[in-house]
């Protein structure tokens, strides 16, 4: 087996997905026995070679013209392009400014906007073809390992195709919707588990917090049913949709799913 040449790229984001790869700890060395990392700015000194890649992993979302140019270059230089995390997959949290009053958002962050150049936040697949998306904010390392080994063995990565509720209900978690008691001060009374793709092991519900949809929609999201139920609990449609797009306002596909629902 020849070692595939891999590049790991970061656009705009928190670097958490790359850090999650470093969090493989000593297994990073075993990973390096399987792949040839020829470009990874976070962990390597120059010179690095971002050309002729078998696999390019991209983290972070597109927020300016330079990044549009950069991803196009990555696409030209890589056989497979895989996004890691919700920023690269669907815009990430910073994408929320797409669906807010953009001028107000910018003004709240900077007093003088003259030096700030930005474009609406985009997931990478808005600009180039993406072969696979590793979901989550952040991704989890088991997912990453499973996908990398799948690719090495010429196997398509596994897709869950069911909601977070599937994994959540296998554990002894309390359902956030089940309870009619008052919502505690620290959390929302909406759980996005029913419309969010599984694969995280129901991480947030297992830690006492409702799912906030970081892995994106399932292939069969029952959005209107969720909105109906949440409205019964006193939420406005607008707020529910804002919550549902927390990690995905930079994706036109997600936008379409919500429009279809209306």
């Amino acid at each position, binding site marked *: 087996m020849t070692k595939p040449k891999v590049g790991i790229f*970061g656009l705009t984001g928190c670097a*958490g997905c790359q850090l999650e790869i470093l969090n493989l700890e*000593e297994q990073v060395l075993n990973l390096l026995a399987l792949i040839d990392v020829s470009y990874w700015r976070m962990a390597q000194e120059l010179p690095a070679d971002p050309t002729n890649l078998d696999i390019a992993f991209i983290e972070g979302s597109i927020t300016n013209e330079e990044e549009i140019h950069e991803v196009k270059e990555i696409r030209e230089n890589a056989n497979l392009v895989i996004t890691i995390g919700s920023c690269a997959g669907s815009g990430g949290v910073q994408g929320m400014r797409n669906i807010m009053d953009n001028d107000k958002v910018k003004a*709240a962050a900077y007093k003088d906007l003259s030096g700030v150049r930005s474009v609406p936040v985009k997931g990478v697949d808005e600009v180039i073809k993406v072969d696979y998306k590793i979901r989550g904010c952040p991704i989890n390392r088991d997912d990453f390992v499973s996908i990398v080994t799948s690719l090495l063995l010429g196997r398509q990565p596994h897709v869950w195709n069911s909601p977070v509720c599937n994994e959540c209900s296998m554990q002894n978690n309390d359902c956030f919707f089940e309870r009619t008691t008052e919502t505690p*001060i620290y959390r929302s009374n909406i759980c996005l588990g029913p419309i969010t793709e599984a694969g995280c092991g129901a991480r947030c519900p297992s*830690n006492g917090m409702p799912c906030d949809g970081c892995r994106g929609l399932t292939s069969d999201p029952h959005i209107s049913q969720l909105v109906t139920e949440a409205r019964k609990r006193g939420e406005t449609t607008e707020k529910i949709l804002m919550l549902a797009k927390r990690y995905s306002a930079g994706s036109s596909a997600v936008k379409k799913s919500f429009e279809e629902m209306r």
Partner: protein
Amino acid sequence: MSEDKRINLEYIARVEGYGQLVVDIENQQLKEAQFRVLEGARFFEGIVSGKKHHEVPIIISRICAICSVSHSVVSTRAIERAIGVEPSEQTHALRKLLIYSETIQSHVLHEYFLALPDYLGKTSAIDLASTHPELVAKAFYGKKLGNDMQRIIGGRAIHPIRNVIGGFSKFATTEELTNLRDRLPQLIDETMETIKILASLPDQPTIGSRRDFVAIHDPSEYAYYDTDQLISGHSGPFPAADYQEHLLEEIRPYSHTKFSTLKGESFMVGALPRLNLNHANLTETGKEAFEYSRLILPDYDTFHNNMAQLIETVDCAQLSINLLDRFIADGFEKENFEYDLHPGNGTAATEAPRGLLIHQYTFDEDLRCSYSDVITPTAFNQLKMETDCEDLVPRIATKPKEEIELLLNMLVRAYDPCISCSAHSMKVDVKFV
């Protein structure tokens, strides 16, 4: 012989996020030094506006993965102050434990993978693995332990889940805590050895400067988490809530970027400033580590931030042992989340691994965020990075270009800068060379 050099360290590798240091040297004189951030703006203060109190910490921790615990902890604390929540002592202790975990994880990552390779003439941690496998093994041990602590206490290594407004949404089991407790002494021993190694390396770079530093301060302990006071080396303590009056932000003519200054001067935040200002409260184990380091305080040498991080790693490990012992013995009390929330303004200051981190929020009648201000350590340090060039370049300007590049790289890396976190608050003006 005079030579004009324009050194452009684009993509200073081995820092989290992407930054650029442009240094113009003309006739062996520094003409201009600019530290720039290449990442796109994310407008976090804008994004959280209008969001409910409980949504803000989840979103704001995404500013930076490596400091996500600090952002989560400082934002929940600031919001609690704003809306009238006073969590239990247990919650404060658990948050401290989280911060210690993050500090251990972050310091170990930075020291072994990002800083030490320079001191040992290596280009990367991977390179280091071939000649110093024992150092790499230590690095993985400490980093994994720090991460496991964050997983077990916070629910996840990156972007913790369990730390919420008013307390914790879930607690670790005694078995989990005992497992962590039993692994910490080895980290202390190994870090002590590394301190001795670093202290014994000859010909280390130094920088001649006496610029000020700032950290949070608590008279009773070496503070990492939320105090009322900030303290500076030259001018003493002031209330954390008044940070905007003391740590002024100003515009400099040569740059669009905002700079934090203390009385118009640059200052440093991070491990070295904390050590300088709070060393009296180190644990006994921490003091032992300090002895091995051979540092003499006050220490203004930015390069020594690396050593200070190692001392703090030991100190945090000891503080963690103390807290874990307590929780193993006493268990956890169920949290009380019953509060009458009200609108208001609140500030919290904490120490992220790479320095002072301040969040301030205002919430309206609807408990939606109407104002927020986040100042990250890398933003505080930005001006200091540039003034350090003014201090360092004259001493090294006659050296070959490669050596100057390496030294400037080491200088920037010593700050352990995290550019992801500064990207949201700094203006970006990218000149691609």
